[in-house]
């Protein structure tokens, strides 16, 4: 039932319980197989440059990629919900919730309250987006742009409040190391695992994947499209808010540009991770691997003394060549 909606937990158990050629064959057929090979390649290149295949280098990159994967997964859900859907409000939700955390809107020490408020705002933004899309029949790209703009100004209004790094238990937990892994990576992985279950094991997930393949078919099969779309955008909004929360706490500082890089990056991670940008197939694990490819590529280029400009060019080429390759191979060209 759910082979197309793979996620991290599922594939890990698969790999540990079975051995043999069959696994490899299965693995190669996965949409994210190319991205995973890319990760290995980039790690090896880093090893060749530094003269040591460093585990901590991989973990450091995975930590950044884990945060990236939250944005990527949010964008993935929106992209896969139907062709043409995209969430442009993503960077604004991320930045706003980061400010909610650091400015301590509900009092500096009320960490739980701030997290809750951020998540609520994220969910609300998603709901507003769907209201605009379904009620006013505005295309997703414009609806999310409009709500993002409004959120941006809300961010500006709390920007000048005295902010200070989020401290306490929460920060300590994110920075702590468990079995060599950073706390923030574990938190991100747990969130992604929950999303993976949601998308692959629930009725919502099934109907979501049906809708992404063909919305009219899904409707005739009894799927209430409006509700599934609401679930999708609320999920995306919550993920973006959580990313903002983690960024504000883990990085210790916030800027108005905080979310900007995540808009381009999220789509890039999704595409590289093998999710069909026209809907119907998702892979949380693939998106996470895609995010790791992007981060590793950047780290490698830094190790090789490439400038920031070259890093961007190469990232762009990776994205473009991936989509061209996927499109050239898919039978349903337009």
């Amino acid at each position: 039932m759910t082979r197309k909606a793979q996620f991290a937990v599922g594939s890990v158990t698969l790999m540990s319980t079975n051995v043999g050629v069959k696994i490899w064959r299965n693995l190669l057929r996965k949409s994210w197989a190319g991205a995973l090979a890319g990760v290995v390649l980039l790690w090896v290149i880093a090893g060749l440059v530094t003269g040591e295949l460093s585990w901590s280098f991989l973990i450091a990159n995975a930590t950044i990629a884990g945060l990236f994967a939250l944005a990527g997964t949010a964008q993935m859900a929106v992209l896969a919900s139907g062709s043409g859907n995209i969430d442009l409000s993503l960077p604004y939700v991320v930045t706003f919730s980061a400010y909610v955390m650091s400015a301590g809107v509900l009092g500096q020490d009320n960490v739980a309250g701030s997290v809750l408020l951020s998540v609520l705002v994220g969910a609300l933004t998603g709901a507003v987006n769907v209201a605009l899309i379904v009620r006013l029949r505005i295309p997703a790209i414009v609806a999310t742009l409009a709500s993002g703009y409004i959120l941006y100004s809300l961010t500006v209004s709390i920007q000048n409040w005295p902010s200070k790094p989020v401290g306490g238990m929460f920060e300590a937990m994110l920075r702590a190391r468990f079995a060599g892994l950073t706390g923030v990576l574990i938190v991100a992985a747990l969130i992604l695992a929950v999303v993976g279950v949601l998308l692959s094991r629930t009725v919502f997930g099934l109907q979501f994947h049906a809708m992404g393949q063909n919305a009219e078919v899904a409707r005739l099969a009894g799927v209430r499209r409006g509700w599934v779309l609401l679930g999708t955008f609320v999920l995306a909004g919550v993920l973006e808010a959580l990313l903002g929360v983690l960024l504000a706490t883990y990085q210790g500082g916030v800027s108005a540009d905080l979310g900007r890089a995540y808009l381009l990056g999220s789509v890039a991670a999704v595409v590289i991770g093998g999710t069909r940008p026209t809907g119907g197939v998702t892979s949380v694990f693939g998106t996470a691997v895609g995010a790791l490819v992007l981060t590793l590529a950047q780290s490698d280029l830094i190790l090789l003394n490439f400038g920031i400009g070259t890093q961007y060019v190469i990232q762009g080429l990776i994205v473009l060549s991936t989509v061209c390759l996927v499109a050239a191979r898919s039978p349903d060209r337009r």
Partner: protein
Amino acid sequence: MEGAGRNAQEPQSGNTVISARNLWKSFGNNDVLRDVSLDIRAGEILVLLGPNGAGKSTFLNLVDGTLAPSAGMLLVNGQPVESGQRVGKNSRTPGIQRVFQELSTFPNLTVAENLALTSEHKGAGSRRELVRRARERMKVFPGNRIDVREEVASLSVAERQMVEIARAMTEPDTRVVILDEPTSALSSREADQLADLVMRRAAHGVAVIYVTHKLEEALRLAHRVVVLRDGRLHFDGDAQNLTHDELLSLLGAMVEQHSPVAPMPVGDMSRDILTVDKLSSGRLHEVCIRVSAGEVVGIAGLEGAGQRDFLQAVFSARTRNTGSIHSSTDVAYVSGDRKNEGLLPLWDVEENVAISAAPRFSRAGLVDFRGLKATANDWLSELGLVNRATSPIVNLSGGNQQRALLGRALASEAPLLLLDDPTRGVDVSAKGSIYTILDKLKEKGRSAILYSTELAEFRRCDRVYVMARGHVVAELSGADITEERITQASFMNPGHAATAASREAPWARERLSGDASLAKLLSWRSLPAAFLMLAMFALVFWQQPNAFSTFGLELLFQASLPLAFAVIAQMLFILGGDIDLGLGFSIGLANVLAATYLGDSFAVGVLAFAALIAGYAVLALIVELLGVSSVVATLGASFIWLGIGLTIRATPGGSSPEWLSTLIHIKLWPLPLSCYVLAAVALLGLWICQGWSYSIRLRALGQNRRTYISLGFSALAGRVTLYALAGFFAVLSGLLLTAATGAGNVNVAASFTLATIAAVIVGGASFAGGLVSPIGAVMAVIGISLVTTNLTFLGISSEYSTAIGGLILVLTLSFRSLTRSTAS
């Protein structure tokens, strides 16, 4: 025309225009057309009749060159048409005009533009000439109230059909006109005009092939009647001495006296699970139908008589009681249009079946996959498909796909199934097994409503309602359900010709002139942008009266110049139905290139700009040839623009070439230079969208790429043009930024990407593509930049202008959807 309304005039014995010899056409094992030989002479009106699925459409597709015959020969004007000539983009045989049942006009173009698009003299002549020629052509419907300057989207269905007919009828050098049910949307008056027109054209030597289900029309027009049945030529003869009843029996109906439509004695009402009482909507007129438990009810009639509309209405109203539909049960839908309404193509058979049952197998939010799989497999084994459970559904034959989809409906456990032509395009054995499933279904007490294009299938039904032109015209049961009786009822004419007229009476639209101009203003797509700009101007001058000077205006407008060029670039993308998410960085890159190279070496600078524009052309290739979405492609490109910009200049720097700075500081009177430039860029944009000989085609491409290609135009050339022009405007925007800031900075225009999308939309564009307003977009840019100015005057942080931009966007779109819904 003769007094009796019968066109008794003998056709002039014209030359043979089309000659079909032993034509065969098969799709797979299915012979759709068998051994048809037919000569069509110039000046002849040939009425083509036949029940559903008789092969009429296939025959027409062969004649107009859309399809190639499997065997046999087709001579057009005495020349054999080789099938090789027909494949590819130029699929239409010259000299043959066809009016389609589904309208193929572009709704975003005006009537005049639609007529000009396909005409021979392409682009020649001014706008006025275009309108004049269109008015001339529309005169074939005397007294019509169609304004050829209006967009086709604002016309009624009948008016659109009239435009299509006028186009086909007035195309020069036409030898053959094919009319496929041309009067389905027309009122009786327009149908009369059409009849006149057809006869006049025939008298001028044009051959007319006229397909209709309306027998009175056939009798009135035909010189000759051809009847197809089961793909064979069943009758070919002179129309002169044919009567209505003779036509009916040729079509396979049992001829008897018209029996009045008496409603059947009402059975046991308590067992009714669905009652529809006088449902009227769209095509449907006072449809009354009831379905009891354990009953299979047929909905027969000619194609397009309202059967599908009825099924869709019942499905939409499921489990809710809305007005005239009272349904006490859940409903499942099975469509014969598997590709568009049935298959979930990425899933296997089991998953396709299970999706409808998933809500019943949810425990604590999680799906019980084992139970779900078991249910799906139970149904699959009942259908004999269990060995294919894990095959991708797209690998199955049509018949097996259809059985699986039936399984999906059964697995939902809905007591009522809506079967929308479930045996379309499946082979005989699959049909048999689908019938068996239907019988079993009945035994289990479940009900179904069956619509089919094959009459024989209705013999399985307990009762059959026959629909004609949106009405239920007969109810048959038991032994009365025969193909003959259904055919006879299908050709009935309920309400006699008044049907179309009562719905659509375009000339009856009388508006007060004041109302009309207000309506026109409200429907002006750029109204919100114009209002925004004027309101912001008023606010500025109210706060700072001395802004109303050459210098003051210069200050106000200077800021919006680069954005105005950027907005035209984005508009060109949206014109083609695309979006540029990399625009901000490509402008930033142009800015860096100008500040770095242009001052030292003009040639190097120009080359660099040419490379940027070439980059855009490559993007067009990726989008058009590989089908990559423009969002993803331009997003990828944005990384590259940014990267190149940073490589050339990691930190802001460089300088504006002297000539450029001088150029933008030219003093003019009475208005500052920027005013003229803003007006010029808006007009340039307008010229690209309206005045250029290519404009009509570009807008047609943005609206509907498939139809555009089917007309024989190159979508690739169109998209490359749009993208390259957008790149050119991005370069201009970057140049202006260089002049304004005196430096190069790749991040300088990062906010432009989203701001331009917002401005184009506020300015009056639609995302459907092909509908943009350059003047509105530039007004929106000015308005939005004045918002910032006003905020500064009011002492509010200019950062809030973003929120106001967002609000303006939502308000504009709400306003637009409001005026649209009140207008219709």
